[in-house]
């Protein structure tokens, strides 16, 4: 069955955007996932934050599961729920038991990515007092809606026990509710309508070759017996970009309405989620035996690091990132005709007044930190302690999104400079 699921994967090849059964997907690590969820809760409060995250997961998952069931021709609720649980594990999100009917029911989770990774990363330092697995909750709610042909956005789900709170497993309850008005899906056609004509940049041949090799490698990645993907020193998920975009932009919109003075603060934290992700995951890939086998042992040359990171971004489905300018020690200009963020923003929000690709901003900033501040020849371990020590006093570089497709430009362009 999973082979048939994987056969529904597609790519906008000149734009490096990936889709699974029409739903946009990308690879992201636990550092990004946890920090972004935390930022949403910081912005809205835990209760409203959890509600938004659950709604976003249900929204994005419904698009994926309904498209997938149509493509695979699955009919019965049992086979649809079975597929959902298997897919969730294959994507690296953990193991689910979905025990629901059209009237509601229960769900259970073990090794759930969010709860487990939170416990691993923060559990010794902080006691968590609320559940972490809105993604699993929303996913199971959508799976139930799709399985029983219920109105979209109608199934309510609450996580009642969570491994991040030291429970032995995660538990969920479901009940039908009033259906919300669905948002327009951001699928292949919408992304195709938003992206700009593609172009190339510096070191293109090298970047394209590495990106292709990495994409082929990533295509075979699937959850282990726990339903987790543990690689390159991080927990990796194949995730739904609509989830990330909806929680980020709904929270951003709410902050703009309620507390506009805090807008720069949430933007800085959204950038930081990209920064922590790229620093750890891209850095982990560059230091990995797989990279050494495919590209060669990393030497620490800034051009090597930045071009390598650009290729990794493409392979993970973040867009057709190109290098427009690179002056080691001084300046980087990253330019792209496609980002998963702008596809969503233009489709659901319309024209923007400013650059909205906060992930790309944080990612580009991290490129230069990896290039300039990591002693590669010493083969450092990219631990939480290393990260905190390096950035405790801030980042001595600035970043600005000078162009954005969301505000009508022909590309998204991010400039990073030493301060």
């Amino acid at each position, binding site marked *: 069955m999973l082979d048939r699921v994987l056969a529904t994967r597609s790519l906008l090849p000149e734009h490096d955007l990936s889709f699974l059964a029409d739903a946009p997907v990308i690879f992201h690590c636990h550092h990004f996932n946890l*920090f972004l969820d935390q930022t949403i809760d*910081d912005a809205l409060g835990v209760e409203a934050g959890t509600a938004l995250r659950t709604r976003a997961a249900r929204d994005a998952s419904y698009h994926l599961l309904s498209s997938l069931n149509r493509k695979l021709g699955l009919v019965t609720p049992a086979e649809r729920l079975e597929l959902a649980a298997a897919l969730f594990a294959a994507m690296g999100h953990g193991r689910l038991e979905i025990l629901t009917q059209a009237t509601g029911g229960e769900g259970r989770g073990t090794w759930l990515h969010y709860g487990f990774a939170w416990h691993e990363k923060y559990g010794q330092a*902080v006691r968590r007092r609320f559940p972490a697995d809105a993604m699993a909750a929303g996913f199971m709610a959508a799976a139930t809606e799709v399985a029983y042909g219920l109105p979209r956005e109608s199934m309510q789900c609450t996580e009642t026990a969570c491994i991040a709170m030291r429970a032995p497993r995660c538990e969920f309850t479901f009940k039908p509710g009033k259906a919300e008005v669905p948002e327009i899906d951001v699928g292949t056609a919408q992304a195709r309508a938003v992206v700009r004509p593609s172009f190339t940049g510096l070191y293109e041949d090298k970047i394209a070759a590495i990106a292709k090799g990495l994409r082929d490698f990533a295509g075979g990645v699937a959850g282990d017996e726990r339903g987790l993907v543990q690689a390159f020193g991080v927990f990796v998920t194949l995730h739904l970009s609509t989830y990330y975009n909806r929680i980020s932009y709904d929270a951003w919109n709410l*902050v703009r309405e309620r507390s506009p*003075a805090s807008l720069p*603060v949430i933007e*800085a934290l959204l950038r930081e989620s990209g920064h*922590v992700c790229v620093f750890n995951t891209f850095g982990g890939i560059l230091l990995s035996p797989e990279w050494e086998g495919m590209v060669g042992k990393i030497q620490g040359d800034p051009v090597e690091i930045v071009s390598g990171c650009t290729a990794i971004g493409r392979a993970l489905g973040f867009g057709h990132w190109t290098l427009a300018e690179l002056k080691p020690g001084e300046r980087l200009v990253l330019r792209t005709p496609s980002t998963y963020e702008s596809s969503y923003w233009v489709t659901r929000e319309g024209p923007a007044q400013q650059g909205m690709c906060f992930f790309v901003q944080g990612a580009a900033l991290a490129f230069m930190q990896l290039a300039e501040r990591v002693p590669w020849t010493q083969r450092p371990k990219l631990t939480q302690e290393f990260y905190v020590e390096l950035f405790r006093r801030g980042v001595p570089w600035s970043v600005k999104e000078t162009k954005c497709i969301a505000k009508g430009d022909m590309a998204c362009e991010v400039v990073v400079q030493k301060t």
Partner: protein
Amino acid sequence: MSDTRLALGSLVKDVGGIRALIITVMPDCLMFDAWKHEQEPFEPEEVASYFGDLIRANREGLRALSSQGEDMQVTIEAGGRLVVLRELPGDFVAGFVMQKDTPLGMVRIHVKRILERLATVLPSFKPEERPKGVRVLDYLRRYAPDPHAALLRVSLRTGLPMDVLNAPEALTEAQANVVASTVRDILGLEELHV
């Protein structure tokens, strides 16, 4: 480390196995003075505040046990070191960092001897407590899992601008209370003892 405010080097010169002596002043957990072996890589200023927090946490623990005493001593054995923390008169805490293989009996003798010497050189004053906002945000920086982003998180949660949080000594009492409540939530604590 050469000369210090209390000339600690001369106090410890004949103490076998000692690697550092750090004097913390309470309740702000700031370093008052320190001596360390020249081969020790750590920064005493960073260690001093944790030693102060440890004493405070143990005081709270003993209070919960209804077992408060005047002569509390905390002993920690880990990572090739033996650490002894001892409260001193005048709101000071002495932190002795010893080699782990130093016999415990010898450590007790050394600690007792140095404490007697310290008692003759420590100043007697009532330290001025720093404003609550300063203490709370210092605590956050010490314990937040992502300290580089901690202040941004407080700003987003409270709505207080970053320039206000960057001058915590000027926070009003109401602002300081909101910040304290937020820090408690971020750290997942029932109570915040600062």
